[in-house]
């Protein structure tokens, strides 16, 4: 799920960046430092959309660097347990399949794939129903439910299921 939130960060700036372009320098540094990062608390910071406030700078004792508290708005992506979302399958093997939703990777174990789907190995490994009507392979679009999330230093990883009602391969009505 994408959220639009306000975050605050203390930015340290070297005096070489002071002067007319101080604010611009501060904002570029903020974007370089923060965009693309991930934390367990906020999820992935996708893009900064605006600066709400830049507080007064405080000179650090002993170094001459100045710290500015910056409040900014940004779009973040944070998956939640129980959330249902759509994702693209990136890899299929006999343990299950991996899918991606934006910056997040989700693994769906074969235990959480409906029993009537079987793994077929080959050039394009896939899971298919016995009558061949539904197939999950690389680049398929699936709707899945997140049942767990794990955060490590730089990313969030999820596990999901397609075993409930209304989950599984998305049938595009345009092609039906």
């Amino acid at each position, binding site marked *: 799920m994408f959220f*639009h939130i306000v975050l605050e960060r203390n930015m340290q700036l070297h005096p070489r960046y002071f002067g007319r372009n101080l604010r611009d320098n501060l904002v570029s540094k903020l974007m370089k430092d923060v965009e693309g990062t991930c934390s367990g*608390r906020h999820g992935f910071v996708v893009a900064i959309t605006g600066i709400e406030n830049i507080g007064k700078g405080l000179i650090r004792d002993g170094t001459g660097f100045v710290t500015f508290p910056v409040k900014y708005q940004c779009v973040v*992506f944070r998956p939640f347990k129980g959330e249902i*979302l759509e994702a693209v399958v990136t890899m299929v093997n006999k343990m299950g399949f991996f899918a*991606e939703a934006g910056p997040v990777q989700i693994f769906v174990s074969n235990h959480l794939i409906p029993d009537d789907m079987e793994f077929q190995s080959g050039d394009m490994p896939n899971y298919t129903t016995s009558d061949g009507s539904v197939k999950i392979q690389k680049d398929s679009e699936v709707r899945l439910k997140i049942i767990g999330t794990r955060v490590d230093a730089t990313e969030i990883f999820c596990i999901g299921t397609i075993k409930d009602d209304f989950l599984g391969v998305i049938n595009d009505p345009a092609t039906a």
Partner: protein
Amino acid sequence: MSGEEEEMLLSSNGDEFLKAKCLMNCEVALILEHKYEQLQQMSDDPMNQVSQVFEKSLQYVKRFSRYKNPDAVRQVREILSRYQLAEFELCVLGNLCPETVEEAIAMVPSIKTKGRAHDDEAIEKMLNDLSLIKKFE
């Protein structure tokens, strides 16, 4: 929203998510495309300047947006806002566009919890309104 979601949003995540606005994929697509255009104007090679997270998110929201037209996107939010939904519920419905009341309840079970004013008829009307926007987009 479900108990787990509420717990996550309110307890471990502090104040930010209490005031957080949820965004549907189509809304995020508009924001990210706009930002990408701004970057294109400022430099010749915008792809170098954006993080992989931005690229993947942009590709994802473009692929999974049900509504492309900015006016349609605005209308979707407006229509769903009339139904006393939590932000989270509104966005899941706007993203997944369930076709039947049964599907809607499966996607967002919290709309049927006790004490809430959403009977099947209201949900059906909401889904019909949504599909009308899609037809005339």
